[in-house]
């Protein structure tokens, strides 16, 4: 049985949708509070995959994702690194992406005490809640997008205030591109890259980056919400009881298939 852990923290609010998407893809899913994992009431390693869902963990205190990451780094760091090194998949959605960045699991170029990238406040100075177009850029490294062709355009909603991807040094962006770590870029409806143009690039992210993976491809973080784009009836134009899948579905399906093929 494929077991995935959806980790919860105070203020997490996308855990149930995320769990439902994973169950739909065939996984057995537990939603568990971070404290239970930290206190070793539940063993992290009984799970094949881990998801940090979206929300406002710890009320975005200090800055988005900072407290959750600090807690995990203080109490669970070795386990999390081992989990990632064993190439078990770790997914961070929205606030979960912010946490992975603050932890240093992304971009994972080094496990330094200070992050090398950040998700800064949106250039618009607004909370951006809208559907966006994403171009899939991975040449095959990212295990969460194996079911998606390179260059394919996907639609998912974003909902965040702090999603502007910035790097400490230009050199880091170059390395991300060279290493095939850029997974999703914001695009226009015609498939061209947004090139910073608002609202296609909703937050002003450098290089229109919406999601990146680590060097091995088993840790993915993205600002858009794939769990809100699992079924066709969730699409803005669909008001019917259409039963097909929407684009976000393929991320969860790929995650579960990867576990089945390479982790079990």
């Amino acid at each position, binding site marked *: 049985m494929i077991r995935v852990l959806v980790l919860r923290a105070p203020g997490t609010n996308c855990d149930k949708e995320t769990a439902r998407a994973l169950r739909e893809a065939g996984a057995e899913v537990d939603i568990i509070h971070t404290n239970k994992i930290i206190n070793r009431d539940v063993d992290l390693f009984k799970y094949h995959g881990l998801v940090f869902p979206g929300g406002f963990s710890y009320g975005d205190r*200090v*800055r988005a994702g*900072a407290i959750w990451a*600090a807690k995990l780094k203080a109490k669970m760091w070795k386990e999390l690194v081992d989990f990632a090194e064993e190439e078990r998949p770790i997914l961070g959605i929205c606030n979960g992406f912010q946490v992975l960045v*603050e932890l240093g699991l992304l971009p994972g170029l080094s496990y330094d*005490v*200070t*992050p*090398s*990238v*950040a998700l*800064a*406040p*949106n*250039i*618009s*100075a*607004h909370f951006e809640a809208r559907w966006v177009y994403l171009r899939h850029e991975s040449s095959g490294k990212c295990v969460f997008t194996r079911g998606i062709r390179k260059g394919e355009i996907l639609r998912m909603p974003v909902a965040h*205030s702090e999603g*502007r991807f*910035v*790097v*400490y040094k230009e050199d880091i962006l170059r390395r991300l591109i060279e290493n095939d770590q850029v997974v999703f870029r914001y695009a226009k409806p015609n498939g061209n890259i947004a090139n910073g143009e608002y609202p296609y690039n909703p937050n*002003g992210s450098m290089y229109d980056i919406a999601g990146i993976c680590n060097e091995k491809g088993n840790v993915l973080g993205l600002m858009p919400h794939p769990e809100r784009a699992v079924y066709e009836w969730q699409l803005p134009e669909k008001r019917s009881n259409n039963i097909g899948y929407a684009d976000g579905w393929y991320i969860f399906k790929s995650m579960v298939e990867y576990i089945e093929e390479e982790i079990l």
Partner: protein
Amino acid sequence: MISMPRFVALVEVWLKEGLVDAEGKSVKEALNDMGYSVINVRVGKVYRIEIEAESKERAEYLIDEICRRLLANPVKDRYKFSVHEA
């Protein structure tokens, strides 16, 4: 048992110049609406931290580490602090 000296640190954390400060922008707009010729507002955070340390130098070292590990993400924030005896 000899207790360690106590220090108080005041830490300021600011978004780096060039990054949008949404709260500052809202405050500026409200002040303009109220008739003030305010040109720019930046909002930062101040932390007052009481800490035990062997010396002032040690306290400063620890506060700097605290800033780098939690209070600021150096990619987007800048910080400064002062430490004095409690």
